[in-house]
């Protein structure tokens, strides 16, 4: 269906190619997962499939890419629109019309389908994706999961045979992500579509995949069955594969269900051992006391009055659906201007620093070096403070790079360093894992742990259950602007079907959260002193 023959591609002829000598053949009716570090060329690979690369982006393509027999070198994206449906990273950015129904019809209008055919296909698409009740909604009012499903629907009307999606779940909460991925799996099974998905959160999607394509960032692309490919790249592997490697299951299972069926032995070995739950260090007085914190936008309550104590050295994960009030809670903690009422008392001398959802909003200078120097000047710190923080986070950035050219993980680290130059004692991170690859995410977990070890309190709003399991001591779950639960991480996430990490699901009813916990329990010398 999709054939890459000796494909070499470079955005700039003078630089190293993003993809080099790639040979790839994807069959009809496969769900193909594209994995690899940020900036390795996953989006480039996806763009090559529908011709956006090189027709829209520019660059030099050698070799031949053909889809359904059409050569993408001679067919621009619009001439492939009836064959390849493409959904970009931010579905809302691709919406052209005003309402859901018009958006579903837009692609068909461009193809010149007859009105009665369009009418029929719009109804079919609404049913297929389960979005009938959304048909008259304005596109701007959709939630993230709804917008993603409408975006998928908007390309299905053209009856494409290939569907290409770039990180379809990165902005979604766990339940909405599961909905979208189940929809994709259904399209593969029922309609025989070939679906190509790039995704960082492999724990969400690996078990749906028929094939995994690994892009290594140096131009090499390998493809194969999911289990073996992921086992070869342990840094990318989802927890279930890592646990399989630890327990010696061969071939590695990809779904929680398969792993559970083989986990009886492991559960017996772990019986009687305890995960050594991370106890929130509460021996010191709280660093931050929030009382009756609430946020209202006009008549809409974003956050109902909430109380929160944060202790030094504590990491708190704030979870909940999209729009549950997570961001409102963070902004209200950070700055009085965003509170409608309530008080936040910080221990003396302590400041708060917030890294917003789109960290790039804080950057406005031309180079990394200027940003760091400006941060020192603004904070009144001695020169080199912010650069030192950045180095402490384990990220090396050349001072002359432009902040917009950084990968998501690098940009997050830069903004974190800029914000930490003021030496705040309360650090607030809003959805930091969006767009982070597993390696960058591991770096973030380590950075959060070192911030906490230095006596700071860290609050992370996140959809990422694995991040919460790995980094947090305590979890606050919000729903509709109200605090539903506030408790130790194991207690809160293990009992929740939406927020339980993979290891907890596999080893339930015991409360194991991460592969590291299990490894420490199994290997005595790794156990904490």
């Amino acid at each position: 269906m999709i054939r890459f023959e000796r494909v070499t591609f470079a955005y700039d002829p003078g630089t190293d190619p993003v993809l080099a000598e790639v040979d790839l053949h994807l069959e009809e009716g496969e769900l193909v997962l594209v994995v690899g570090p940020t900036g390795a060329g996953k989006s480039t690979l996806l763009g090559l499939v529908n011709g956006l690369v090189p027709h829209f982006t520019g660059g030099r393509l050698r070799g031949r890419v053909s889809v359904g027999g059409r050569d993408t070198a001679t067919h621009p994206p619009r001439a492939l629109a009836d064959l390849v449906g493409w959904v970009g990273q931010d579905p809302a950015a691709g919406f052209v019309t005003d309402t859901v129904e018009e958006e579903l019809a837009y692609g068909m209008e461009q193809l010149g389908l007859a009105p009665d055919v369009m009418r029929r296909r719009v109804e079919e698409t609404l049913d297929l994706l389960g979005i009938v009740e959304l048909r008259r909604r304005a596109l701007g009012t959709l939630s993230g999961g709804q917008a993603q499903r409408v975006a998928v629907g908007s390309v299905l009307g053209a009856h494409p045979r290939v569907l290409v999606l770039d990180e379809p779940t990165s902005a979604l909460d766990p339940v909405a992500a599961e909905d979208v991925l189940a929809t994709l799996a259904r399209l593969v099974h029922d309609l025989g579509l070939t679906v190509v998905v790039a995704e960082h959160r492999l724990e969400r999607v690996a078990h749906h995949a028929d094939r995994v394509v690994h892009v290594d960032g140096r131009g090499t692309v390998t493809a194969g069955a999911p289990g073996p490919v992921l086992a070869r790249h342990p840094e990318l592997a989802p927890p279930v594969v890592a646990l399989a490697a630890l327990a010696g299951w061969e071939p590695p299972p990809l779904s929680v269900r398969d792993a559970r069926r083989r986990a009886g032995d492991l559960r017996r070995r772990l019986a009687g051992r305890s995960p050594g739950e991370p106890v929130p260090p509460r021996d010191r007085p709280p660093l931050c006391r929030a009382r009756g914190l609430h946020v209202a936008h006009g008549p809409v309550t974003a956050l109902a009055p909430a109380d929160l104590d944060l202790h030094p050295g504590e990491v708190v994960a704030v979870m909940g659906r999209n729009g549950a009030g997570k961001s409102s809670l963070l902004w209200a903690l950070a700055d009085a201007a965003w509170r409608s009422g309530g008080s936040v008392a910080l221990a003396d001398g302590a400041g708060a620093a917030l890294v917003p959802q789109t960290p790039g909003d804080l950057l406005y200078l031309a180079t990394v070096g200027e940003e760091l120097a400006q941060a020192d000047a603004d904070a009144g710190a001695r020169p080199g403070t912010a650069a030192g923080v950045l180095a402490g986070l384990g990220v090396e950035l050349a001072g002359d790079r432009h902040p917009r050219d950084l990968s998501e993980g690098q940009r997050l680290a830069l903004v974190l360093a800029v914000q930490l130059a003021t030496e705040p004692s309360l650090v607030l991170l809003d959805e930091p894992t969006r767009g982070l690859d597993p390696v960058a995410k591991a770096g973030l977990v380590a950075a959060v742990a070192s911030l906490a070890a230095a006596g700071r309190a860290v609050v992370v709003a996140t959809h990422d259950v694995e991040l919460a399991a790995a980094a947090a001591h305590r979890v606050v779950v919000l729903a509709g602007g109200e605090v539903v639960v506030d408790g130790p991480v194991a207690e809160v996430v293990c009992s929740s079907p939406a927020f339980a990490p993979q290891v907890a699901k596999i080893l339930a009813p015991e409360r194991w959260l991460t592969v590291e916990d299990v490894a420490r329990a199994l290997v005595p010398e790794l156990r904490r002193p």
Partner: protein
Amino acid sequence: MTAGPARAPRRSLHPGAWWLWALGLAAAATRTTDPVLLLALAAAVVVVVAARREADPGRPGLRGWVVAALAVVAVRVVLRVALDAQHGPTVLFRLPELPLPAAAAGIRLGGPVTLEPALAALYDGLRLAALVVSVGAANVLANPRRLLRSAPAALHEVATALAIALTVAPQLADSAHRVRRARTLRPGPGGRRHVLRQVVVPVLTDALDRSLALAAAMDARGHGRVRSLGRGRRGAGGGLVLGGLVGTAIGAYGLLDAQAPAAVGLPLLVAGLGAAAAGLALGRTRALATRYRPDPWAGPEWAVALSGLAVAAGLVAASVADPANLHPPTQPLVWPSPGALPVLAVLVGFLPAWLPAPRARPPRRPPGGEVAAGTGGDAEGTRPAVGAAP
């Protein structure tokens, strides 16, 4: 067609009808400085918008346009009062006079303020204000994006650029809000230059990113698929449209400007419209895109459009018959007394407020029951004639 027990659901009026109505009112406003007529025109706009605006929380209402119109009037009157209002017989009050250097002889700042020039400025300002609210009403009543969807194929490229601009512009406000919020997190140095950089740079890069993302999505979904025509026919079509539009513009100007020679008015307008129509017809054969549930143009559309055009026609006729009647003199000061024809014409502009809202037509049932589904339906999916635009 028998009406069922439940009435057919309302549909929205074709956006073109609202634009024609509003442009008719605007054209009428340019022909007069009679404050009574102008206030009546503005009232017609406000009444019709209040009656016919569709509830859509996402789109701004008429308020901003009214504010802009009032600002126009205020600026006009204040400037006149400050600079050049001493020539009338009726002195209202005296402003302190500013002595100006000899180089600025002939300009007087301040001094006695008289009623007549101030009123003349007010009349003039009202005319501009009526224009502004008319155009505003068209924007409020008709979604500009829906209007663009009805744009003819020959104007495809222009319509695409406008569609992207219309989509990205409101998002600019969002990203400006987001960036300003983020700025509070990293206060940084004060000063105008820094503020500009801190807000403008991220917002503009955001806008560029969004435009590119939208353009990529539109391209990937087949936007811009056209049948290839010969180079000559494409050129001819484009030339005809462009020349026709220029002719139309000059003709419209001639018609609206009472001092222009008669030959520049109607004949040029008609010739321009003809050329543009021919060009659009040529371009039509290039079009491939179809419309999903197009806005129909039926009785209600005709009624609204004609009511607006009738206002314009009435005032043009009145100004041809007796130009002085539409421009009440301020020296000597006379109470404006417009004739019956212009008053009646302006009243026609109120009509859309009471015209019935259009209703969707019940679906036609083809003989033989079920709507034919799947008969030859999917064959259109891949047209062999489709190619890239050359």
